[in-house]
């Protein structure tokens, strides 16, 4: 066996090989490190990830730093303008107790933004995870077992045609009390909404994953595993799932964004969380009537939603590039 390791120390020093073919790069480089290295070169993605981490930290740690209860009504201090407003309008009603101002019932906008962000992000993440799980499951089963394909794809059509609102109403009717008993009122409604969004948004993922699996099934390494005698129940977790991961990740980033948006649309339609339970979408919706007089009340939540969605999208772009061997290194 004469094939000396190609990346022997001597050649490595003289021929650093940073080419598109990273095959000879640093020893032990795992694929994930590689993806990460690639991801880092995508400026937008890194910015997006940084923003997302910051926003998440802001929402998680916020209540410990800004210790105002978002539900606190301070009617005497209602309709305050944000502090910075005093810069150009010295007559504005401002107070340091409410740096971003307060709403018509005197609730603190900053505290509401933090609390709303927690809910919006939690809804986004959980609904997205749920929809990914369902989408992947359906996609993988439909793609891998051709007998299930027809049935599952028709099922996908069915769900596509289902109207979300009556579905949510039915779910509320059927499960609200038991969920409330089991998880408490807020968690219960949270679970309902998340489930509602989750089970009505997995269809695209399922289609994409199915396509990927169909293509994957033709790949030789699947054949190789079959020639070893690997049964389907191990084939899927071992070979199929890891290889559709990149598609799933990319559609996950979009899923997160659209879950946040769907939640805000639900607020518009009057479904969704109890009124004392702010979310970014609801803050935005509740303030549209007063946006001419109090633009800050729409700008902050609107900005929070947009920037989160934008950063998540950039992360998706970055991930796609990082996972795509063809673009690697470009």
């Amino acid at each position, binding site marked *: 066996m*004469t*094939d*000396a390791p*190609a990346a022997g120390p*001597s*050649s490595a020093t*003289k*021929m*650093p*090989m*940073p*080419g*598109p*073919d*990273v095959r*000879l790069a640093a020893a032990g480089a795992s694929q994930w490190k590689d993806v990460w290295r690639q991801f880092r*070169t995508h400026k937008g993605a890194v910015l997006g990830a940084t923003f997302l981490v910051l926003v998440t930290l802001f929402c998680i740690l916020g209540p410990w730093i800004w210790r105002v209860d978002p539900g606190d009504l301070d009617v005497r201090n209602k309709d305050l303008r944000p502090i910075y407003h005093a810069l150009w309008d010295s007559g504005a009603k401002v107070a340091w107790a409410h740096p971003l101002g307060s709403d018509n019932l005197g609730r603190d906008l900053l505290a509401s933004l933090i609390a709303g962000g927690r809910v919006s992000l939690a809804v986004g993440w959980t609904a997205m995870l749920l929809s990914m799980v369902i989408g992947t499951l359906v996609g993988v089963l439909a793609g891998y077992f051709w007998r299930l394909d027809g049935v599952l794809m028709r099922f996908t059509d069915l769900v596509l045609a289902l109207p979300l609102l009556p579905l949510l109403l039915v779910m509320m009717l059927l499960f609200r009390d038991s969920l409330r008993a089991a998880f408490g009122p807020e968690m219960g409604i949270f679970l309902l909404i998340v489930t509602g969004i989750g089970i009505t948004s997995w269809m695209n993922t399922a289609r994409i994953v199915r396509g990927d699996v169909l293509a994957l099934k033709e790949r030789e390494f699947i054949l190789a595993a079959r020639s070893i005698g690997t049964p389907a129940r191990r084939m899927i977790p071992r070979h199929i799932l890891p290889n559709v991961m990149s598609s799933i990740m990319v559609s996950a980033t979009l899923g997160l964004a659209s879950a946040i948006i769907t939640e805000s649309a639900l607020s518009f339609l009057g479904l969704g969380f109890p009124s004392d339970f702010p979310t970014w979408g609801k803050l935005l919706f509740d303030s549209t009537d007063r946006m001419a007089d109090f633009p800050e009340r729409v700008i902050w939540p609107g900005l929070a939603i947009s920037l989160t969605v934008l950063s998540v999208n950039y992360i998706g772009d970055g991930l796609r590039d990082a996972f795509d061997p063809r673009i*690697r*290194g*470009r």
Partner: protein
Amino acid sequence: MPDGAPPILEVRDLRTVFRLRSGDVHAVNGVSFDLREGELLGVVGESGSGKSVTMMSLLGLLPSPPAEVLGGPVTFEGKDLLRAGPEAMRAVRGGRIGFVFQDPMTSLNPVFTVGFQIMEPLRKHLGLGKRQARARAAELLALVGIPDAGRRLDDYPHQFSGGMRQRVMIAIALACDPKVLIADEPTTALDVTIQAQIIELMQELRQKMGMAVIWITHDLGVIAGIADRVIVMYGGQIVEHAPVDALFANPRHPYTQALLTTVPKVQGERVRRLAVIDGQPPILGQFPDECTFRDRCPYAFDVCHRLNPQRYPVGEGHDAACFLNDPGLAPQRPVLEVVDG
């Protein structure tokens, strides 16, 4: 043999670098050669040795960024192609120089008919009208041996077999009677019997149309059958250049020699064990200052690790970039045995 014919294409010190986010890749490092009228110049070398990039650099076909073509000049019909404007370059491409690519399966646009794709350069370069172009396209298809050519113009590429698609590619390349045809591994993707058909076709066409051909391949067997002169590339450089007989009879670069021994034969004595070249071809992160073959070379000695050899002339129209051929260094090194091809 067009031995003394004047060169129509002269390439001097061509360099191509890919500037990637992860660093540079030096794909072509100072390549010089020329092509004479009517001859067939074979280019061999293993995968990644820079054969395709060299040829595409000539015509500006590389995506830029990341590719950057340096050096030159590349003189064709008195013009420096590297410094010609985009319009002039387009007139050369497809008009004066035809290109045939390796993979006939993907090199044709799947959504346009074959006829349309042949007519495109005809209308662009020769300014033919629709009717004329169509008639000429049918002629071309017939020329490359596709039966029932007139009717098949309206077929899509996927309705053709691999061999036929490659013929279509050739027809496109020949459409405007080019002076030079560059064929980048035109038969590698094809079956042996089909490969034989294409080679025969090319030879026939060359006789008929009298153009010069650059034929890229990694199959020495193909070269042996058709080429007049051969260039051997390694690591983005020309390591050996010789008339075909001289190359096979008397290879002067260790790489060429090794290459000739690794391939088993269908005739003659069956070797008990195949000779191998250990190691991998290099990918160059910088312009090589030392011999690129040194790590795989059984004869490598100290100079090889310090300097990049120039091309030493070793015979009539024959040179090799190896210090073993440097008379000045000769005493210090092991004797280069001439391996029998």
